[in-house]
């Protein structure tokens, strides 16, 4: 697990650096078309060119920005929704808990990609919408997890609280439940980022990502699908980037659990 943690951290750090330093790092303008279309890798174009003659490597580097933005943004939104719900459900007993559990169970079973698909088509695909939609689709597992953890902590704390003099629910949550839940939440955040990047790339692949000419990994894979027999790197490179990024965040998250 320790190896996993290091590798995961290295990957995330690398992607972050790439995203931040994109303008300096990318050898060429990712939006500049050229007459050398679908060229195989060469000295000037390390991953070749795409169907409009643009440098695949530069586009891949810039793609890190959108992916990280969506991944982290969506995970944050999911946390903002799921954590409070999970906390409330896990701390309060009785009907509130039952109602929330029913709600969570209902949403967990629905296919996330399908839901995201429908909503995105309705509201239109742009950065802000994607972050919100994905966040809205990802909160149930977080809520369930937080609830479980909160329950565990609550059992331990209950006795103590019973002996202490009149602490309100909110106080208990803040001072006892939350610190117990926090490590799990942090780990889950990373996992959520990986899931968000995974799902947004799938949406982009289906044509519902940030529209062209944006350098977006999923969209690049989609565009390159027709040209696998000519320059496969147009698809394989961004696809590998997505996989690596998802893997990095996932491994880090699971290693802390």
């Amino acid at each position, binding site marked *: 697990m320790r190896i996993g943690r290091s590798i995961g951290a290295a990957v995330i750090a690398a992607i972050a650096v790439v995203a931040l330093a994109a303008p300096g790092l990318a050898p060429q303008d990712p939006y500049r078309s050229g007459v050398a279309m679908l060229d195989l890798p060469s000295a000037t174009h390390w991953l070749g060119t795409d169907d409009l003659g643009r440098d695949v490597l530069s586009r891949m580097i810039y793609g890190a920005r959108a992916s990280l933005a969506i991944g982290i943004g969506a995970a944050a939104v999911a946390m903002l929704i799921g954590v409070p719900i999970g906390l409330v459900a896990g701390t309060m007993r009785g009907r509130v808990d039952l109602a929330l559990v029913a709600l969570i169970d*209902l949403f967990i079973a629905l296919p996330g990609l399908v839901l995201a698909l429908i909503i995105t088509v309705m509201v239109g695909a742009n950065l802000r919408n994607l972050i919100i939609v994905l966040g809205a689709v990802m909160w149930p597992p977080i809520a369930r997890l937080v609830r479980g953890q909160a329950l565990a902590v609550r059992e331990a704390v209950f006795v103590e609280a019973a002996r202490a003099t009149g602490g309100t629910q909110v106080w208990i949550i803040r001072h006892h439940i939350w610190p117990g839940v926090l490590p799990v939440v942090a780990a889950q955040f990373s996992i959520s980022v990986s899931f968000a990047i995974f799902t947004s790339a799938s949406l982009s692949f*289906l044509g519902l990502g940030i529209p062209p000419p944006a350098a977006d990994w999923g969209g690049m894979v989609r565009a390159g699908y027709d040209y696998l027999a000519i320059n496969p790197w147009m698809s394989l490179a961004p696809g590998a980037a997505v996989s690596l990024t998802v893997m990095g965040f996932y491994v880090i998250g699971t290693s802390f659990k």
Partner: protein
Amino acid sequence: MVRPMLRLIVRRMLLMVLTALAVSALLFFSVTKWLGSPASMMLGQDASPQAIAALNAKYGFGQPAITQYLHWLGGALRGDLGRSYTTQQSVAQAIAIRLPVTLELTTWSVTLAVIAAVVCNTVPVARTPLRRIVTAVNLVGITVPNFMLGISLIFLLSVQLELLPSTGWVPWSDGMGAHLMHMIMPVATLSSYYFGVFSIVYRAEYQDVIKRPFIGVARAKGLNEWRVAFRHAAPNAILPVITFVGISVGQLTGGAVVTETIFSMPGTGRLFVASIEGRDFPVMLAIGMLIVVGVVLMNLLADVAYTIANPQIRHES
């Protein structure tokens, strides 16, 4: 045991109907506003304005949403799910043609994933390369998106090595060999994700089970490690996997959207995506309902199976 189970089934069925109604109404009222007139999309570039108006009237687009909804509901209860805006084919028929494809893909993939997950994680070869390989495959399955896996397989096996036909689907009637050849990559792609998921769940449970007293007893009796693993530990560890299988299959009733798209398989998933992009409302609504029913049904089946399989619950009643 029978009576509580019957109660469970009835309750779940009721839930299914309620959910279906709620979701259909929700879809209907939120989506009809956003739809344009399907008539001009149906008729294409050479159509005249009169033709468009006539078709619109025929489909009742001027009417209020509630009227249209009740009209649809009435039809749906009779089995008439309307006609597709894009092909003008009966929606029920369009789905009926595609459902077997999706079911076949799903069945193969989930079955393969379960068997592989259980076998790979039961084999008592701790601390060997196999364990590491399985962990690596798990990771790849869970993190590498379907489309990347699929495209990589296509590139490797179809484009480079020309071993397999890359896309499309051949019905059984056209030859079993050809059919299976076309299924290999889609199944491999789809099952890898579930292999990862099931592996994780199973392994966690298995670690738990293997530490229980009765395993120690079995070992003490002199049973070899393999028998202990497969005959005693596995059947217990598999229980939570059943729940996950239920959830997975439920989610897949709408079709494995990305896999079907990459491999151009005529399944409900691809139809669903096409209907959403094409604003083909009757189809979208019908498949949406299918998903709701599928999810609730599969969860119910999984819970029933779990109850039957779980000796603790069985003996409680």
